[in-house]
C-alpha cells in the first residue's frame, strides 16, 4: 500500500468533505470493492468526482520519481465523466455513491484510470477506524505554557510579541514580555516567539496534564531597521494601435546607501482632472514597482502620488508633500 497517517489537533479536525461540497461524512462501515460498484470521492485537485469500480485484485506497476513499484490487490476505478482523479488527489477516501461507505484510498492513476488501496488493510495497518462523526473526539489532555520574551540587546521585555505553539495556539506578551498559553495538548511542544523587527526564536517545552510548563526566556535579536525613500518616479508611453498606455515605475531605495529595496509594498494614486486610480503592489529586486493605465488620453496630464511604502525592515521616510510625478501624454 501507499498510505500515510498524520496527527491533527482538535481545532483542525473535521469529518466531512468541506463547505457543503462532496459526499459529506463517510460511514464508519467499510465495504469491499466489486466490479461495477458506483463510487465517489472528494479530492484536493479535482474535488468531487464520480466513478465506477472497473476492476479489482489488480497487480499494477506504478511510476514514482524514484522508480517503479508493483502493487498487488489494488482497486481500479474509472471516472463517470472524464478522469476520476489527478495529481494531488492522493489520500482521497473513495466511498460508495450509495451510503458513503469507505471502499479504498486513492494514490495513483492517470487520465484513464485511478488506482486505490483497498481501505481495510490500510485501516488495519494503522490500527485506525473511519470517523463518521457520531462520537465526539475524546477530550485531549492539556496543560499550559508560560514564559518571557526579552530583547537580546537590552534585556527588556518585548511587549506585543506573538508566541505560538506547534499546535497552533497563540498568545501575545504583556508589557513585561510575559505570556501564558492555556489548553495546550500534552507532550513536547515547540514554542516560537516573533515580533516586528526582531528575529524569531523557538524553544521546546514539555507540557504535562493540568501542569504549567515554564518555557523560560526567549531572547529575540533586534533586526536593524532601515529607512526607505522613493528615489524616482518615471513615466513612459506604449502604443497599441490608436491607443496610448501610460506606464509608470516607482523606485524605492534604502536611504542610507541608495540600494534597491525589494518586497516593499507601494500604494500610489494616479489621477487626471476628474478621475483617479489606485495602484498597489510590491517592488521587485530592482526596487521597482510598475503600473500601467490603459488607453490614456493624449494631451491630458496625469499625476502619480505615492501614498505609502511599507516593509517589515524599513520605515518609510514619508515626505511632505508626498513623492509625486506628472506626465502629459504625447501619443504616438
Amino acid at each position, binding site marked *: 500500500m*501507499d498510505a500515510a497517517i498524520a496527527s491533527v489537533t482538535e481545532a483542525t479536525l473535521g469529518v466531512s468533505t468541506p463547505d457543503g461540497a462532496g459526499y459529506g461524512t463517510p460511514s464508519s462501515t467499510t465495504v469491499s470493492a466489486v*466490479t*461495477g460498484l458506483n463510487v465517489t470521492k472528494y479530492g484536493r485537485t479535482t474535488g468531487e468526482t464520480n466513478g465506477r469500480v*472497473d*476492476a*479489482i*485484485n*489488480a*497487480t*499494477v*506497476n*506504478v*511510476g*514514482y520519481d524514484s522508480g517503479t513499484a*508493483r502493487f*498487488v490487490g*489494488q482497486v*481500479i476505478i474509472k471516472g463517470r465523466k472524464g478522469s476520476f*482523479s*489527478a*495529481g*494531488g*488527489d*492522493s489520500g482521497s477516501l473513495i466511498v460508495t455513491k450509495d451510503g458513503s461507505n469507505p471502499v479504498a484510498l*486513492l*494514490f*495513483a*492513476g*492517470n*487520465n*484513464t*484510470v*485511478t*488506482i486505490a488501496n483497498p481501505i481495510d488493510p490500510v485501516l488495519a495497518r494503522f490500527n485506525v477506524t473511519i470517523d463518521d462523526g457520531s462520537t465526539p473526539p475524546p477530550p485531549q489532555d492539556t496543560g499550559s505554557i508560560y514564559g518571557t520574551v526579552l530583547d537580546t540587546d537590552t534585556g527588556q521585555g518585548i511587549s506585543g510579541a506573538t508566541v505560538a505553539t506547534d499546535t497552533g495556539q497563540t498568545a501575545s506578551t504583556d508589557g513585561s514580555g510575559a505570556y501564558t498559553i492555556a489548553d495546550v495538548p500534552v507532550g513536547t511542544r515547540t514554542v516560537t516567539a516573533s515580533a516586528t523587527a526582531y528575529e524569531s526564536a523557538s524553544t521546546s517545552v514539555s507540557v504535562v496534564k493540568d501542569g504549567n510548563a515554564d518555557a523560560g526566556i526567549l531572547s529575540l535579536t533586534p533586526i536593524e531597521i532601515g529607512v526607505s525613500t522613493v528615489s524616482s518616479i518615471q513615466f513612459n508611453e506604449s502604443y497599441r494601435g490608436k491607443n496610448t498606455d501610460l506606464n509608470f515605475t516607482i523606485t524605492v531605495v534604502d536611504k542610507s546607501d541608495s540600494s534597491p529595496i525589494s518586497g516593499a509594498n507601494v500604494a500610489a494614486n494616479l489621477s487626471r482632472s476628474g478621475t483617479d486610480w489606485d495602484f498597489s503592489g510590491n517592488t521587485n529586486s530592482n526596487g521597482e514597482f510598475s503600473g500601467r493605465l490603459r488607453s490614456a488620453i493624449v494631451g491630458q496630464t496625469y499625476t502619480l502620488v505615492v501614498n505609502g511604502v511599507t516593509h517589515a525592515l524599513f520605515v518609510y521616510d514619508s515626505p511632505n508633500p508626498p513623492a509625486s510625478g506628472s506626465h502629459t501624454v504625447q501619443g504616438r
Partner: protein
Amino acid sequence: MNHPIEEVLESSADLLMSVPGVVGVAQGESGGRPCIKVLVASMTSEISASVPDEISGYAVVIDPVGEIRTQ
C-alpha cells in the same frame, strides 16, 4: 471454468506482467461475466502476440490505459 478467477489471476499475473508494455492485470467484467483485464501503456504488436484471448476459460480484455503514476 473449474478454477475461481482469483486463482487464475494469481497464477498468470507474473507471466502477463513480464510482457513489455503491460502495466497491470486485474479481475474485471466483460459482458456480465468475470474476465481478466490486462492494462497496457499502449497497444503493441508484441502485446497482441503475447497475450492470449482467454486463460482457463476466462476472456482476456486488453485495456490501453496508459502509464500509471503516483498522484
